[in-house]
């Protein structure tokens, strides 16, 4: 290790093996993520730029993209405060059944999505217990965009809870107590002490929930009704295109989803690091 370096690595660890581990990381990422994604990025262009544009501006494709990203964003926005609340209750209070409840949070992770979709549909269909109640007041839950939203709420919740929970657990109670002795009201303590510390984790969790929701297929197709222009999600449209042997068209929609998701996650990351920097300053 005496070779002169023209540029310097940040010295990562006193343990040896940096070159080996970086090599393995890159090879692994390339095999699992980069090569498949490159194939996806390259595939649509056999249609030509105009062909890709034509595919993506079809009303049906636009409607499905709007639904997928709209419902995912809405579900992430609703899951953020509710997930925070769940994490708060699980961390800050002791009550019988807490551990059981805590374990339940992970169920949406573990359940095959098709099972989740069938269960949700059975409950929210007009003939189901909850769907029947909604139907009485004239709201159609399953087989409508609301059904899509419900499924995405379900699969997104654990991402928010599990991102916030460990941070909340490690949050120093003394800081809050100090704020209190300095005369901060309850409201001020939450808004100026607790929330800023949780914000990066909350953003990460919501971002993950959003990304997961955009790509969700299994649970949504059971509850959505899958009507073109109304409740047809973009991943379903990709499957439909594949089944018509329109590989390039399917890849074009996939590429658009990849681009929008990447953009959204990038924004979340930028905002998050800005908040983290402000917190550190």
């Amino acid at each position, binding site marked *: 290790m005496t070779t002169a370096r023209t540029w310097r690595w940040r010295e990562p660890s006193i343990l040896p093996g940096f070159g080996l581990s970086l090599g393995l990381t890159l090879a692994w990422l390339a095999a699992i993520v980069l090569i498949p994604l490159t194939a996806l990025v390259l595939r649509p262009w056999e249609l030509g730029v105009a062909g890709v544009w034509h595919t993506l501006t*079809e*009303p*049906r494709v636009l409607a499905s993209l709007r639904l997928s990203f709209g419902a995912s964003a809405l579900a992430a926005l609703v899951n953020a405060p509710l997930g925070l609340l769940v994490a708060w209750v699980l961390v800050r209070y002791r009550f019988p059944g807490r551990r059981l409840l805590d374990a339940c949070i992970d169920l949406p992770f573990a359940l095959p999505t098709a099972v989740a979709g069938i269960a949700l*549909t*059975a409950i929210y*269909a*007009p*003939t189901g217990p909850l769907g029947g109640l909604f139907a009485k007041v004239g709201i159609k839950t399953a*087989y409508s965009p609301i059904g899509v939203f419900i499924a995405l709420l379900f699969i997104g919740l654990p991402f928010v809870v599990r991102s916030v929970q460990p941070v909340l657990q490690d949050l120093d109670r003394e800081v809050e107590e100090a704020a209190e002795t300095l005369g901060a009201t309850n409201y001020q303590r939450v808004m100026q002490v607790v929330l800023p510390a949780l914000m990066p984790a909350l953003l990460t969790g919501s971002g993950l929930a959003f990304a997961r929701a955009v790509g969700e297929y299994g649970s949504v*197709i*059971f509850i959505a*009704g*899958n*009507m*073109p*222009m109304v409740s047809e999600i973009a991943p*379903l449209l990709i*499957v*439909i*295109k*594949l*089944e*018509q*042997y*329109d590989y390039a*068209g399917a890849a074009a929609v996939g590429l658009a989803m990849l681009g929008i998701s990447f953009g959204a996650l990038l924004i979340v990351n930028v905002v998050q690091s800005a908040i983290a920097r402000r917190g550190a300053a």
Partner: protein
Amino acid sequence: MTVDFNSPSRRSVLGVGGAVLAAPFIVTGTARAAPKSLTLLNVSYDPTRELYKDINAAYSDYWKGKTGQTLNINQSHGGSGKQARAVIDGLPADVVTLALAYDIDEIAQRARLLPANWQSRLPNNSSPYTSTIVFLTRKGNPWKIRDWGDLIKPGIGVITPNPKTSGGARWNYLAAWAWAQKKGGSPAAAKDYVAKLFKHVPVLDTGARGATTTFAQRGIGDVLLAWENEAFLAIEEFGPKFDIVYPSLSILAEPPVALLDKNVDRHNSRDAARGYLNFLFSPLAQDLIGKNHYRPRNAAAVAKWSKQFKDIPLVTVDGAFGGWQKAQKTHFADGGLFDAIYKP
């Protein structure tokens, strides 16, 4: 942490790993030396699970008696288009038994696993049985649904899968179109009717089984457009909660079967696979076909089983729509007539 590389547990793990790695080679080795057993893969569409379970058992017995070879026949089921795509993408099927000829044409065209004239290699356009599209209503037919025209009455909910993803749904759509064209006398009338019909569809499932579940288990809709065999099966499965209604006109569905030449040559399974497809036309298999509510070809099986089916006029895809290639292009391709129904 220290690891003792000579501990017995460590060694046994390595031993098992080695055995697992070696296993495929051992199997190949014995298969080459003496083909005592052979595996066939039949890639089929959604509602044929029960049918091929019966047929595979019968054919394995027959083949064992004839050659002494043990035959394992594996089945794969799913939407017809999805299954064809899986084969094109490399699923090593020996034979395909799909919902419509168009999907096998695509395999011939895109993957060149079989010659373009595949359909003339077996009797009856390579279709060992036929079927048709019927209505399944709730018990007692409370809405008095008798024919296609009744489906677009106010308040009726119609369940059919999406023709874009389901072979059965394409037959549904074409049957509806054929009736309306005959009744209205023009393609414009048919287009108008089919557009109205799909306005009555509250859920578009991706496959025939999904649509049956929506109708039978979720209790959505008043009438299910279904494969005839699927309608019978629904009554067997869910009890007498439904009535089968035959419309005044429907479509003759001829689900075809084909041997994938390139795949069977690679697997050395040509004789067994060809025998399997020929077996489908034998009296024994034809009897099983009738038992599973498909319409058999063989005269004896027809005599035995046709009492369960109602004799109604059936149009063919070739006669009424100029063949599958044309029907697919006109109706189901992107920008086709089906898409136009949902244009805002």
